[in-house]
Every structure is written in C-alpha cells, then in structure tokens.
C-alpha cells in the first residue's frame, strides 16, 4: 500500500517538477492556451466519438437496445467474432513467444530483417491483407481450382476470415515481448539450467513470471484488434448473414440498412471491449512501473 502511494507521488511530481522549476515553467497564459488547444482537440476527436456511440445506441431506450443484441443475426455475429478471436489470438500468442524467444535469447545473422518482417503486417492496408488470401485461396487463386475440386471453402467462409485476422494481428504479442526480453537478457534462464532445471521448468518458473505483464498486454491488444477487424475480414467474408458476419461487419450491414440504433447497439459492445482493453492496459502499465520502481529501489544501497 505504501508502495502504491510512492508510485502515485512520483508520477505527480513528474509534472510538478517542471512546474516548480523557473527554467522549465511556462507562463500561466501559455499553459492555459496549450491546455485549451490540446484538450479541445482531445474532446473533439476522441471523447465525443466515444460518447456518441453510447448515446446513439440508447437513443430509443433499453428495450430497443437489448432487442438489437439478442436478435439471431446479432447473436451469430457475436459468436463468430468470439470464435475467430479464439483461434487467431492463441496462435499468435504461441508465435509471439516463440519469435521473442528466438530473437532475444540467441544471436543469429539476419535478426534485424526478421524483426522488420514481423512488423510488416502493421504497415499493410487491411484491405490488402484480405486481398492476399483471395489471391492464394480464391476461385482464381493459386489453390482455387484444387480447393473447388475437393469442395473446401476458405474464401467467403470462416477459414479465410480466421487467416485474415491472424495476418492483421500477427505482430502484437511479439512486439510487446521482444523489447522487454531484450533488456532482461539470458542470465536468469542460464542460471536456472545450471541449477538443474529442465527446459520447460526454466520457461515456467523463470521466463513466464518475467514476461507475464507484457504478455497479457500483448494478448489484450491482439484480442481487441482481432474482434474489431473490419477491412481485412470484409474482403474475405462474403457477407452472408448469420453465417460469415462478425460484429463489425454486422454493424456495417445494419448501418447501411438505416437501422442506426441497432448498428450503434452492436457497436457499443465493441466500444465497451475497447474501454476494457484500455483499462487493462493502464493497469498493466501501472503494474510494470511498480515492478520497475521496486527493482531500482532494491538495487539502490
């Protein structure tokens, strides 16, 4: 408890440190002007859109709101969204840990190139992320004729949507783990092995506790993006109601049919997910800041 108070005090003194120092203090009118500009922009571009989602979804009352969520097409969209995230996130979690392990614990040529390749999906337009799977598995794609001959559907079906989601959420976990594990080095794992731990014991008792917060954060971000992805999934989905519609695609369909309240009701669930993600993120950052404080205090004589 006392520790928490120290951390809070430290963060406050961050800004106070600048405000107390004549060399770094801005005149009051400058502070007022900058704050007005910054916060005005914040309210206009971030806060208002967030509030609008919830107000618009409840415009016609709770009954209409709930009805829009329990309607069969909405339920099937929610189920499909959970299913796709349930496949994509664990796969990218395993990949993220494996990639971070290889990159941070060993030296090999081409490492920097590998890191750049892992980041690649972030710089590709979601629309292109969907397109590439159409080019590989679509009717006119590389494997198209073979898939049709064997009656396997990937594009305009769930497998294609899973693939597109894996592509766009590919870097999230690896990206959170790599910088952290790089600073942690390999001494602790090597010590565990020298003391007789097996590879799995070493990973479970040494590595995992060290990376758990970053891992959780990466998974949370990966999940938010997986459930909210629109462009990539839209290209490969085929938009079959009740079958290949995820929540974001369902929002689009309702919106284009002028069912605005229903569209915002489904959108509000996704906005809630975004808020939960931000709360977890803030908590994880606070936790790791605390761990860092404890670590530096422990090192100080």
């Amino acid at each position, binding site marked *: 408890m006392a520790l928490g108070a120290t951390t809070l005090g430290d963060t406050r003194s961050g*800004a106070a440190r600048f*405000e107390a*120092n004549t*060399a*770094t203090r801005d005149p009051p009118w400058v*502070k007022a002007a900058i*704050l007005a*500009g*910054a916060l005005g*922009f*914040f309210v206009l*571009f*971030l806060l*208002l*859109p*967030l509030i609008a989602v919830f107000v618009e979804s409840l415009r016609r009352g709770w009954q209409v709101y709930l009805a829009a969520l329990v309607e069969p097409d909405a339920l099937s969209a929610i189920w499909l969204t959970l299913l796709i995230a349930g496949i994509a996130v664990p796969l990218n979690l*395993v*990949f993220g840990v*494996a*990639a971070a392990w*290889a990159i941070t*614990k*060993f*030296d090999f040529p081409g490492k920097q190139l*590998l890191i*750049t*390749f*892992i980041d690649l999906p972030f*710089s*590709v*337009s979601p*629309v*292109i992320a969907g*397109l*590439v*799977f*159409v*080019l*590989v598995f*679509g009717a006119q794609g590389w494997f198209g004729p073979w898939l049709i001959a064997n009656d396997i559907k990937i594009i305009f079906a769930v497998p294609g949507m899973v693939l597109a989601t894996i592509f766009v959420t*590919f870097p999230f976990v690896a990206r959170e783990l790599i910088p952290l594990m790089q600073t942690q080095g*390999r001494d602790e794992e090597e010590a565990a*092995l020298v003391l007789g731990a097996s*590879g799995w014991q*070493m990973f479970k008792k040494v590595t995992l506790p060290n990376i758990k917060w970053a891992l959780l954060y990466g998974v949370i971000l990966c999940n*938010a993006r997986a459930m*909210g992805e*629109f462009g990539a999934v839209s*290209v490969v989905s085929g938009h079959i109601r009740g079958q290949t519609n995820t929540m*974001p*695609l369902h*929002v689009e369909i309702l*919106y284009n049919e002028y069912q605005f309240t229903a569209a*915002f009701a489904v*959108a509000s669930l*996704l*906005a809630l997910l*975004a808020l939960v993600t*931000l709360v977890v*993120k803030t908590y994880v950052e606070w936790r790791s800041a605390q761990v860092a404080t404890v670590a530096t205090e422990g090192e100080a004589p």
Partner: protein
Amino acid sequence: MLMAHVRAHRVLPGFGLSLGFTLAYLSLIVLIPLSAVFLRTSALSFEAFWQAVSSPRVVASYRLSFGASLLAAAINTVFGFLLAWSLVRYRFPGKRIVDALIDLPFALPTAVAGISLTALYAQNGWLGQFLEPLGIKIAFTPVGVLIALIFIGLPFVVRTVQPVLEDLDTEIEEAAACLGAGRLQTVRRVVLPTLLPALLTGFALAFARAVGEYGSVIFIAGNLPMVSEITPLIIITKLEQYDYTGATAVAAVMLVVSFLLLLVINGLQGWTDRRSARVR
C-alpha cells in the same frame, strides 16, 4: 568467428524449434501471401499494369488518400505535440483519463469509429447541424475523410513524442535560461530540435497508417468516384467487379509505398534513439 559466437550462446534450449516455427509461421501467414501480390502483378504486361494503376479514377483516389493522409498527419503532429507536452509538463484535472484515452483509436474497431464520426458530422448530426447553416459540409466530402484519418492517427504522434519528452533532461533548458534565452527561444532553439526526430517518426507512423485505412473512412466519406473515394476502396470495388488483375495492380502500388514508408520509419526510429541517447 561468427559461428563460434553463435554456438557460444546456445546454452539455452529451443533455438532450432523456436526459430524454425517463427520462420515457418511468418512465411505461411505473411510472406508467401504477400508475395502473391507481386507475382500476380509481374505476370501482367506493362501496358495492362499501367492502365490499371493510372486510370483517372484511380489517380484521383491516390490524390485523396495521400493528400488527406499528409494533411491529417501534419495536423496530428501539431496537436499530438501539444497533448504530449500537456501530459508531461502540466498538472490538470482528469489527466490520467486523458492519458488512457489517447490510445482509444488503437482499441476502438474502425467500423465503430466510422459510424460514430458520421453521426457527429452528418448534416443533422451532433456537430453537423451547427456547421450546415454556415455552409460547411464535412460528412460525405473529402473533409470527412480527413476527420477520420485524424482520429486514427493521433495516438501515433502522442505515444512517440511523450516518452522522449519525459526523458528530456531539464538541465539543457536550465542552461539555456541561464545563458539568457527567453522561454520561447528555449523551446524553439533547444527543446524542439531535440524532439524533431520523434515528431517526424510520429508523423510518418500516422501517415503510413492513414494511407491504408479503410474502416473508419468509408462511412463518413460518401465514396463518390473522383471526389471522395480512397485507394483501399478502389481495390475493394475492383474485387467486387471480379477485376482481380486491376485490384492486384493497385495493391502492388500501395504495398511498394508501404514498404518505402517502413524503411523511412525504421531510419527515423534509429535517429530518435540515437538522439535521445546522446541528450541523456
């Protein structure tokens, strides 16, 4: 020499397994599918390729996508800097909430942002109803595209500038003040040059994200050909018309731009790290 170095660190287990899995997964999910775009494009004759990527409607979409993205990134650089400055330097009520919500565009699905911004800026919307009598139309015009791109790009600038600003030693500002510089002079001649690499990195990240953005834009843009149609939408439209070669050719152009931007961003990030390391 190199091999000896590699072997020396293979005390830990799992090198072959983890690297093998990483390379296989990366190739299957990212590299091979992406290569399909270029292999398909290279099968086209140059005339066919050029026709697909330089038709007037496509060129108009480049102008809108790149123009609006540049302008949005520039606006975000200015206001992102002000927000980062406020979060690091000032105390004000609600600061923690503002800090947490900066990442909203990362977490909020783009389709949700799209319909919400449209609800705000449509003719009868929350803000649109006050702008309409003034003759200002935002939704269903290129300005609407700009608004959506500002929304999705903002966190990139704030989150790039904020840590650098936090690590900035107050000593250089104190030195400048001692040497007789005014506050404005100090910020302009001492603080801003130190932040320049971070500001440029944030600008480039916001720009790169905006160029490929689809979900938040299509609701508010109105998608009029030649006027408010972005390049990613052109790809989708061509796909829906079964014009796979056309879609692939335009995608190849966008991918090349993305790769160039990635190189620029990597360079800028290296510059940011070196610059902040030196100042510290």
